[in-house]
């Protein structure tokens, strides 16, 4: 199926669905690839912070020393 974009002209009210050019398709695919990388990085950071929270919580309850990262997470 062809990739398309929708364009609405607010002045005329005309809506067009236009097929992407080869250049636009290349950009679209590059953006999607970069997005996958960005999302993986975001998820990794979210997982890291969640693990720090769990660890910090357990150490606080047990009266153990926090790491610098765990302390920073709590008090900023």
């Amino acid at each position: 199926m062809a990739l398309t974009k929708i364009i609405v002209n607010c002045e005329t009210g005309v809506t067009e669905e236009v097929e992407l050019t080869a250049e636009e398709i290349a950009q679209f695919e590059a953006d999607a690839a970069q997005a996958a990388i960005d999302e993986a990085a975001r998820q990794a950071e979210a997982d890291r912070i969640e693990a720090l929270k769990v660890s910090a919580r357990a150490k606080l309850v047990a009266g153990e020393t926090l790491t610098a990262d765990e302390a920073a997470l709590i008090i900023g």
Partner: protein
Amino acid sequence: MFQTLISSVTVGAGGSTSMTFTSIPQTYTDLTLAVCARSLGGGANATLYLEFNADVSVFYNGRSFFGTGASVFSGTDTSLVQINLGRHSGSSSTANTFGSTNVLIPNYTGSANKTMSFDSVSENNASDAFQWFGAGRFPKTTAVTSLRLFDNGGGFAQHSTAYLYGTLKGSGGATVS
């Protein structure tokens, strides 16, 4: 506050990579975009972007805080050539769910840099759903004449919609000086 619908668009069968409003009338004070969309991909959530005047020559500035369903975060965008509006529902979200996004663009015809505020939620009957709130700046002094919405999940699914409204300053839409 009085809002007038300027234009709307609904994605048809097969989906579309973007929705663009062009030739936006310069007769209002502020613009409001209301988007109800689902991505063709993107996993549970896809990122929604907004581009002004087809201008990718500058870095837009964005500042957001958001919840993921598990944690809360804040973030700053300074190296994107569009504004990151948050997340909307992706292909693995609960079937037939759509994310909701609202964007306010005040003084869009003025000669100052263009600012905006936005909020969004993805919809997913699972813990992995985003709530997003932020503000941004398009660092150009030119009037806003076009707006392009797109996502990073492979485009908008059928039935995704976007509505563009104009707001006039003054009671009941009357123009005041």
